[in-house]
């Protein structure tokens, strides 16, 4: 057998096994074969995919120090051995031709190579000189140990709380929605709901492109002959719409009115689940100013507040026909169906993001569609560890690990005990949220711009901040402002930086991610990073040690030991700040097992690191059993599965009202802060596409993905294009009050906006649509609204090349 035949045989074995799993509903016992294809000389190991928040596991094939093959992991519950188009190219994301391989310092306007010793000294000097003005801007792509180290460095070491992640821009409103409804963050359900739901209602999201493996899981059920009704609530037709039984196009922001309209019909028709509400829920109304706690309310007050949201009025606000609203309410009013709601950026990137999250949870609670497999309100995340590293590790400016917050003295005390810090080290005042952090960085010191240094890791704010020309660009012209960027490629942010630090990526380092369904996933380093690129976590620890050596008191615990004391099996400290020694021990394991101590406070218990080495992830709370094994939890708050729900069938044990009940909120519909007018007559929506991930810094370097979707565009309705006199493919100017971008028109393309709306994806660094978007944000989550602002579209002047 030659190599070609061998490859063919092993690939066929893998495909056949997957065909069995798909055809027989995941019954892997019936499937022949086991594991990835046996390719000569290839060593396989597991890792979660580097891209989205789904958390598919891949098998990574390595030969000769390079990743040469990718296979879906047939032992992974999330993806059952399958991959999406980004997933099967994930290995190639390591091998773009322009990887950063040396630290670079800007001198006389040019980035020039320097040594790592010099680079670490410069970062430390910035932090040492003004700890209060030194901020870290991180990411939902940080691994859990990386985010934990950054959080501890800022909150336990520099004692400033000036750290916030890019996940503020993608899921902060989901966090506040969970907190205000259940008193604790993250979904109660999991992906298993998708295997059981009779109805899947998508609130402004497009899983066919953004979470294709999850969507495929639903479509596979149909292929097996099951009935799954899909309903798409959306502001434009997308690839998802093509699979749906009904697509309901609504006007931007009017999802609030739709949710209230459904609740109104449930209440007035008496089809709400009174027994469920009586046993498990309280009612809440908002305060002024708004808060996550709100004020107590009654069912009668709730009913009265909803009274104006008649189907006809909601149709007037939203454009969704009254008959369709009645259809939605009838579905929720049925007890014989199981209903799962899915949402992502559409509800979160919203100036009333917390409110719409509350309202969707409220519909599920009001109708009793909660707590049974298939009955779940579930938010999805866009980044691979937005849940793990941001929400659970607490890298938000107000948070501490494990769901604790800096404003709570008891929480600070707990954190100081775990970190062995002197009492009072952690400050009670939250740091700046993302928009505020960058605003202050882009403001002169004498005008209140008190952030003078930002260290960016694993994200590209020059292209992803809203209204970037106001929030990012001015900092690059102001004296005294210093931007440090750790990244793997020369992104737009890196190229604007004063100091660039080359980073290791994905399987070039150890890591742990946490996905959208509370699943914590571990992997080991498999290949070496190129050149002098080094782990982000090492960079943080090296700077901390440099600060320690300079005498910054915060870098020592109350016993005078280094804040990040990593030891060997004999308990001797290992100088991991020396890169040559960094992999002498498993730094990830020690940081993770320290972090794990925080997770018990809010019943987000994690198992020891070693357990995750053996598993394809486990969903928290993970609790040790009498026999020493560790058991994950699929359905939180439900007595049949959650070990902490002991008093009733459902127990919301972190209830805001301290009575084990969830809250059903009323929030009114309110118009968005900017609406189309005579000068800017169209809505702009932004988002992602199937082939690319976020600002495209990785996927645009995979030739196959770049060729498949080479540049950004503006989707436009045929009639709007005709009225403007532009043809398909013609370059136009999309312009708001804040900025403009020139992009080609795509008519009847993949997405189809209604008249008066346009859509531009943000993956293309060369066509930065976030120069155009609005930086208005939700008052509670502080998450900006990228989904709606007013723009005009105009032809380019004659003679423009």
């Amino acid at each position: 057998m030659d190599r070609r035949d061998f490859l063919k045989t092993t690939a066929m074995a893998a495909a056949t096994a997957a065909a069995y799993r798909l055809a027989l509903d995941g019954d892997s016992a019936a499937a022949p074969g086991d594991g990835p294809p046996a390719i000569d000389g290839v060593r396989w190991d597991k890792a979660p995919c580097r891209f989205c928040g789904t958390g598919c596991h891949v098998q990574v094939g390595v030969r000769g120090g390079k990743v040469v093959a990718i296979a879906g992991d047939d032992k992974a519950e999330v993806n059952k051995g399958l991959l999406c188009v980004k997933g099967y190219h994930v290995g190639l994301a390591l091998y773009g031709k322009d990887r950063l391989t040396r630290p670079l310092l800007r001198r006389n306007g040019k980035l020039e190579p320097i040594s790592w010793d010099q680079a670490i000294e410069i970062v430390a000097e910035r932090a040492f000189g003004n700890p209060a003005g030194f901020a870290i801007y991180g990411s939902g792509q940080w691994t859990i140990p990386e985010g934990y180290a950054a959080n501890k460095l800022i909150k336990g070491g520099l004692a400033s709380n000036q750290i916030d992640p890019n996940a503020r821009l993608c899921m902060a409103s989901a966090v506040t929605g969970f907190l205000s409804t259940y008193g604790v963050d993250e979904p109660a359900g999991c992906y298993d709901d998708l295997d059981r739901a009779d109805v899947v209602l998508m609130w402004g999201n497009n899983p066919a492109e953004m979470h294709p493996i999850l969507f495929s899981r639903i479509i596979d059920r149909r292929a097996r002959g099951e009935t799954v009704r899909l309903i798409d609530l959306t502001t434009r037709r997308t690839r998802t719409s093509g699979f749906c039984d009904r697509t309901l196009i609504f006007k931007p922001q009017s999802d609030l009115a739709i949710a209230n309209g459904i609740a109104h019909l449930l209440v007035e028709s008496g089809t709400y689940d009174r027994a469920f509400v009586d046993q498990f829920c309280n009612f809440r109304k908002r305060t002024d100013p708004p808060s996550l706690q709100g004020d107590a309310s009654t069912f009668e007050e709730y009913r009265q507040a909803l009274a104006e949201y008649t189907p006809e009025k909601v149709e007037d606000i939203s454009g969704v026909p009254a008959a369709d609203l009645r259809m939605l309410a009838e579905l929720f009013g049925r007890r014989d169906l199981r209903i799962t709601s899915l949402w992502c950026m559409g509800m979160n990137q919203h100036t009333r993001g917390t409110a719409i999250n509350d309202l969707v949870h409220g519909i599920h609670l009001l109708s009793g569609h909660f707590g049974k497999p298939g009955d779940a309100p579930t938010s999805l995340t866009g980044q691979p560890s937005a849940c793990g590293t941001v929400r659970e590790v607490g890298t938000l400016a107000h948070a501490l690990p494990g769901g604790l917050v800096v404003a709570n003295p008891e929480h600070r005390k707990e954190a100081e005990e775990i970190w062995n810090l002197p009492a009072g080290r952690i400050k009670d005042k939250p740091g700046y949220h993302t928009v505020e952090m960058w605003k202050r960085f882009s403001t002169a010191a004498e005008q209140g711009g008190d952030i003078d240094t930002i260290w960016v890791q694993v994200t590209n704010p020059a292209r992803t901040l809203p209204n970037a020309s106001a929030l990012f660009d001015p900092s690059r012209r102001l004296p005294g402002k210093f931007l440090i960027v750790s990244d793997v490629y020369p992104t737009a942010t890196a190229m604007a930086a004063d100091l660039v630090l080359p980073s290791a990526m994905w399987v070039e380092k150890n890591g742990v991610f946490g996905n959208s369904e509370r699943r914590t996933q571990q992997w080991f380093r498999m290949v070496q990073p190129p050149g002098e690129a080094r782990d982000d976590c090492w960079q943080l620890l090296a700077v901390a040690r440099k600060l320690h050596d300079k005498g910054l008191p915060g870098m020592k615990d109350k016993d005078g030991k280094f804040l990040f004391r990593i030891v060997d099996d004999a308990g001797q400290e290992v100088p991991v700040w020396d890169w040559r020694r960094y992999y002498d021990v498993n730094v990830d394991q020690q940081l993770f097992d320290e972090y794990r101590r925080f997770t018990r406070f809010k019943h987000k218990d994690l198992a020891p690191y070693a357990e995750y080495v053996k598993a394809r992830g486990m969903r928290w709370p993970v609790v040790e059993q009498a026999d020493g094994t560790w058991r994950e939890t699929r359905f939180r708050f439900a007595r049949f599965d959650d070990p902490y729900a002991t008093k009733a069938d459902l127990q919301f044990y972190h209830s805001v009202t301290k009575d084990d009940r969830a809250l059903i909120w009323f929030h009114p519909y309110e118009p968005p802060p900017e609406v189309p007018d005579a000068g800017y007559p169209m809505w702009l929506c932004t988002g992602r596409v199937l082939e690319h991930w976020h600002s495209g810094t990785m996927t645009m370097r995979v030739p196959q993905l770049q060729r498949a979707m080479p540049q950004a565009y503006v989707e436009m309705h045929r009639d709007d294009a005709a009225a403007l006199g532009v043809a398909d493919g013609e370059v136009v100017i999309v312009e708001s009050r804040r900025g403009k971008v020139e992009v080609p028109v795509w008519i009847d393309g993949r997405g189809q906006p209604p008249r008066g709306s346009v859509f531009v994806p943000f993956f293309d660094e060369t066509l930065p649509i976030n120069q155009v978007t609005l930086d208005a944000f939700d008052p509670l989550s502080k998450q900006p609204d990228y989904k709606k602002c007013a723009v005009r579209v105009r032809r380019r002047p004659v003679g423009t090349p």
Partner: protein
Amino acid sequence: MTVSALVLTLDPEPVSRTRVLERLRGDARLCLGDRVLDRLPVVAMTTSCAAGDALFGELGAIEGILKVDVVAVDFSEDV
């Protein structure tokens, strides 16, 4: 050469299925496995990863193929 392991979901309608299988059998780039209900395991051998991507798109566009899932890709000659 790139080797990809795929699973095709076929339209259950018999005439459509027969037509699709005939077409697939005539494609020299493909090696067909044994069908499991509506799922057909396939190995695709193409000259490059890009050609594999193009084939993925072609298969998805064939009437009677409802879905193309990717199981594994060996791109050792592309890196």
